[in-house]
């Protein structure tokens, strides 16, 4: 089979009809060629999009500034005073409650900035200059600890102050916009909304604000801010030795990234360890996702087969095992496969192995440990996958199979021509989430093998790592370890983000599954 | 009094797709107006804008002189029946119908009286204690209508209410809606894709395509005087035959030349051509299948029968002329003798003709009726 078929060139775009005329091999080839051909233009588009968003952002700032100016020029005295006393216009026009909120916010902001905010902001560029030390105190006639700067607090409160300033500017802008809107409403003879109307609309038109208030606050405080903070930490040298209090830490720019990628450092240990662990993480995620997926589907198909009795029982047993908290099964099985564990003990008793020297060291042999975690993960994952796939299998219209049978397809053909395409289509997004979940599958690895066996090759400035360590368990060990290299943990966290983002971008944008969204509906 | 007035109403979706273009319509008090058109023509969107379920991009909608653009559906005093009934599955029929009243904090006694009254009108009293899933499609539709009726809205909106029912039930419900309308006596706006429903229910019909109104008129008007080719083909079943022909003026008389035949345009249409001083030109000729008649040997046009459909009271003949144009003919079976019927089989050659006064003449370019 040649790349040039009798009538089309696979390197060029071909029409849908010509595409249908290709053999399977040719169409696969065609897809691969065009996948790679599309990457440059796709990247260009991506950057264009990003550029557009940035341009839009700046445009809106420019038009905002213009609007702020014109509002001031054309506004009445209430509006003008509001530029300095937030909420004045609202109060003067009868929106007392709203006005008071604006005003209070301004007062709090000014008080904060004068008392502490300014101080933290001044510390931000250096993250502190004076470390705490012991000094002789003549009065007490002893050495006392003199508190210096705390880099952690400098970074923490400094970041909060910056966010607060941005919030203030936004609120100030809203306050001006409000004045403008109100002026226009009054000019057109409308009445303004009062606190009571606002409260009412929170249960109707603005109900989403009510519902989202709590979840979004939680996400902002416990996810967005910490992530932002940790991204900043990646550009510092914050670790156990530089905890910020007894020993200051400071900005180090891209040093940490250079270390990870062995740029100008001459010390390749860390980058080797990172490469090794990253590739095992991807291998693990691949096998963990797809073995579970196909075996789970296989089990579901077996139980679903016509003529198999006790369907509920078989399913029930599997589901039952997934009810037991995972850590119990994982810890127990981990010990079962230990060198002195049940499996080896039983084999010894049954005479499969002769003496203790022949014991199978599941967790101490690198390749075997890797295989074992994957196999045990199958045990863990099959019940869940069986449940999911059963639901989808039952949704495949029966007449598809009937017509396939009439067309002469046997069971195997039916699977490959109907069941599998349908499943892959419906579960496409699930496979992606599952893959990402496995990249970050802390529990299975840590509770089974704790990342072991320790691999001396992976010994680096980050501390020891094992052959089954994933990036996430490595990250955990780095933070929990004696040296607590927080900056390195941040860098690795960012790397996990980058890997996952790239994968997702490819799956979402390049693989054209969304094009046929309606096919199976 | 409940008039509805739409002025230059436009619907533009995010991304710039225009679903409705400059829609203008005055709906009189107690009028029954039907929006009809193929799917995607904007009829449902327009209805939903009246209901307040879609934002109005441009223009205004007034109900009783009050601009309702910024009003919530609940403040517009309208009610609506949905295609899929939209009954609340967890409530009994009684509670479904009572729901709008409950939300308005109507006293319990009044709720009971009103629901009972509505249920009696619709003949669903015995199901009041059931959940919707225990009802048949027709019964569900009645409950949905009941829920819409119970609070005497100013305007009654119906979005394809019959399209989920089977053909027989649909005919029955259609008749019931006509009866119901006499009882409720309010303004109706009804959306359907089915021209039969539109013709039988509407006082006036609004025919739409691609977001534009193609014609507004009474059923008689749109049937007898279609403004354009689209309306002509959309209204009436089987659809109107259309083909290219030449309009020729000979003195004060106009003739249409097609398939070698030459037919005089007589009656009102001939007079109108004269008034308009139309010159010789090409036209698209439209003739409804029921207006095509079998002609004697030596007269009319030669056609070959390709398919004959026996519909009972009439026969639909799908015929083809010598130059390949397809023409459908409706022949009432009552008037046919046995021998005549035997001749109307596939492959037979027959002769057909039609009278000048039933012809519709359209401009080939604009597809508009050249008489209007």
């Amino acid at each position, binding site marked *: 089979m040649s790349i040039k078929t009798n009538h089309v060139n696979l390197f060029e775009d071909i029409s849908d009809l010509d595409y249908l005329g290709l053999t399977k091999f040719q169409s696969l080839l065609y897809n691969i060629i065009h996948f790679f051909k599309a990457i440059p233009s796709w990247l260009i588009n991506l950057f264009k999009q990003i550029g557009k968003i940035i341009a839009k952002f700046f445009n809106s700032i420019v038009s905002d500034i213009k609007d702020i100016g014109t509002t001031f020029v054309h506004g009445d005295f209430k509006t003008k005073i509001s530029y300095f006393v937030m909420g004045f216009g609202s109060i003067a026009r009868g929106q007392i409650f709203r006005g008071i909120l604006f005003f209070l916010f301004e007062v709090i902001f000014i008080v904060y900035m004068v008392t502490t905010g300014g101080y933290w902001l001044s510390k931000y560029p250096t993250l502190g200059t004076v470390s705490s030390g012991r000094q002789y105190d003549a009065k007490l006639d002893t050495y006392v600890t003199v508190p210096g700067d705390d880099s952690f607090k400098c970074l923490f409160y400094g970041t909060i102050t910056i966010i607060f300033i941005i919030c203030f500017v936004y609120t100030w802008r809203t306050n001006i916009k409000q004045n403008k809107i109100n002026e226009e409403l009054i000019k057109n003879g409308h009445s303004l909304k009062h606190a009571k109307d606002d409260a009412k609309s929170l*249960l*109707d*038109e603005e*109900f*989403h604000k009510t*519902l*989202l208030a709590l*979840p979004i606050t*939680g*996400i902002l405080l*416990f*996810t*967005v801010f*910490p992530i932002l903070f940790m991204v900043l930490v990646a550009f510092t040298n914050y670790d156990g030795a530089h905890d910020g209090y007894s020993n200051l830490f400071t900005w180090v720019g891209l040093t940490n990234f250079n270390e990870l990628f062995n740029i100008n450092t001459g010390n390749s240990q860390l980058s080797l360890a990172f490469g090794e662990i990253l590739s095992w993480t991807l291998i693990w995620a691949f096998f963990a996702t797809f073995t579970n997926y196909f075996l789970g589907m296989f089990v579901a198909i077996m139980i679903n*087969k016509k003529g*198999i009795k006790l369907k509920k029982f*078989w399913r029930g*047993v599997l*589901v*039952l095992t997934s009810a*037991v*908290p995972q850590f*119990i*099964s994982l810890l127990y099985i981990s*010990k079962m496969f230990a060198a*002195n564990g049940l499996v080896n*003990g*039983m084999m010894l*008793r049954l005479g499969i192995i002769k003496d203790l020297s022949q014991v199978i060291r599941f967790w101490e042999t690198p390749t075997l440990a890797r295989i074992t975690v994957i196999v045990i993960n199958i045990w863990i994952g099959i019940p869940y996958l069986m*449940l*999911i796939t059963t*639901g*989808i299998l039952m949704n495949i219209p029966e007449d598809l199979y009937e017509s396939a049978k009439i067309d002469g397809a046997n069971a195997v053909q039916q699977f490959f021509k109907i069941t599998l395409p349908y499943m892959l289509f*419906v579960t496409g997004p*699930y496979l992606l*989430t599952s893959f*990402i979940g496995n990249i*970050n599958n*802390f529990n299975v690895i840590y509770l089974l093998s704790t990342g072991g066996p320790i691999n001396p090759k992976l010994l680096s400035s980050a501390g020891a790592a094992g052959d089954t360590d994933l990036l*996430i368990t490595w*990250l*955990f060990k780095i933070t*929990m370890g004696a040296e607590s290299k*927080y900056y390195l943990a*941040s860098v690795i966290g*960012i790397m*996990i*983000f980058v890997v*996952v983002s790239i994968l*997702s971008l490819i799956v979402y944008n390049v693989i054209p599954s969304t094009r046929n969204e309606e096919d199976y509906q | 009094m409940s008039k509805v007035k739409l002025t230059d109403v436009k619907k533009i979706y995010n991304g710039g797709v225009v679903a409705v273009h400059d829609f203008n319509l005055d709906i009189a008090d107690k009028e029954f107006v039907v929006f009809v058109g193929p799917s995607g023509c904007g009829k449902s969107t327009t209805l939903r804008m009246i209901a307040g379920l879609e934002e109005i991009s441009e223009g205004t909608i007034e109900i009783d002189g009050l601009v309702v653009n910024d009003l919530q559906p*609940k403040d517009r005093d309208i*009610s*609506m029946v*949905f*295609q899929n009934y*939209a*009954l609340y599955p967890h409530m009994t029929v009684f509670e479904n119908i009572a*729901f709008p009243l409950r*939300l308005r904090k109507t006293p319990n006694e009044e709720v009971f009286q009103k629901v009972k009254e509505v249920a009696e009108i619709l003949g669903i009293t015995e199901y009041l204690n059931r959940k919707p899933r225990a009802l048949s499609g027709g019964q569900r539709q009645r409950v949905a209508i009941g*829920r819409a009726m119970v609070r005497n809205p100013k305007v009654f909106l119906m979005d394809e209410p019959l399209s989920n029912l089977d053909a027989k039930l649909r005919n029955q419900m259609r008749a019931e809606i006509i009866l119901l309308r006499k009882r409720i006596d309010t303004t109706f706006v009804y959306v359907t894709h089915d021209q039969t429903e539109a013709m039988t229910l509407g006082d006036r019909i609004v025919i739409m395509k691609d977001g534009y109104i193609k014609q507004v008129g009474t059923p008689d008007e749109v049937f007898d005087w279609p403004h354009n080719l689209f309306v002509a083909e959309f209204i009436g079943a089987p659809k109107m035959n259309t083909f290219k022909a030449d309009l020729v003026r000979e003195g004060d008389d106009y003739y249409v030349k097609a398939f070698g035949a030459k037919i005089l345009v007589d009656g009102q249409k001939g007079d109108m051509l004269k008034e308009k001083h139309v010159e010789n030109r090409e036209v698209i000729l439209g003739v409804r299948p029921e207006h095509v008649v079998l002609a004697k040997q030596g007269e009319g046009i030669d056609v070959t029968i390709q398919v004959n459909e026996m519909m009972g009271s009439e026969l639909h003949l799908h015929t083809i002329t010598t130059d390949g144009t397809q023409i459908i003919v409706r022949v009432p079976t009552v008037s046919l003798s046995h021998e005549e019927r035997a001749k109307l089989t596939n492959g037979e050659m027959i002769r057909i003709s039609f009278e000048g006064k039933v012809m519709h003449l359209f401009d080939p370019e604009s597809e508009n009726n050249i008489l209007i």
Partner: protein
Amino acid sequence: MAEKKHMGAKAKSRLSNTIIYIILVVMTIVWLIPFIFLVLESFRLETTHQVGYVIPKQWGFDNYIKLFTKTDFPIWFGNTFIIGLVVAIVQTIIVLSMSYTLSRLRFKGRKAMMNVMLVLGFFPGFLSMILLYKVLSWVGLTGSNSVPGLILVYVASSGMGYYVSKGFFDTISRSLDEAARIDGATRFQIFTKIIMPLSKPIVIYTILTAFMAPWGDFMFAKYIAHAASDGMNVAVGLQNMIGTQASLAANYTMFCAGGVIVAIPITILFMSLQKYYVEGVTGGAVKG
């Protein structure tokens, strides 16, 4: 001829069914064995070490008694139970608010919000722990006081796990909302009077998964509790119990007993609500 062929097909299907039954029986055994072993070993008295057999030579409840009297297990269990209970309530409220809003309300910034959350999800959740630990320790919610700290950590970001329940809400016909709006309901009334009564399966699913998650969490719990035994949950406590070779040898059978104690209530709860769990998983998980 025809009959013969017919017989052939029948015999073939009987053969394949037999093979399937064999596989299923083997699977059932493989899947149940660890739990049967776990239970058996928890009753063993003769030695606390790992041994090469499972049926105890001496039976008794000593391991259980020791677990409750000599270790902090009751505290761990109580901690986990309280965490589970509070998380189940608060997280359910948060997740349902979030998923309902994203599924059934339309507002400016909805798509953008979903995209931002998707991208945030690409960061490993553990990363934020470094900061959160520090802040929690400032306010004294780590170590022995881990319970409220852990609850905060579990609950606060739970809004990001809206996918499954959004998938459920997406399947409820939108015309119900529209009908209710026309009937005069506010969004709030639609939420309470129409959609919530229809959403029993997903509410139970959300409560169930929210309650069960803290029983299995190890990473966050370990980080926040560190070495403070009275701040641990069962997972960290039991793992700690067998963390080293020496403690493993001394506590192995007691660990088994602990596993049994934890597994029983969770399993019973799970099995009694299995119907809803299956509905949630098959209905929503796939849409991701």
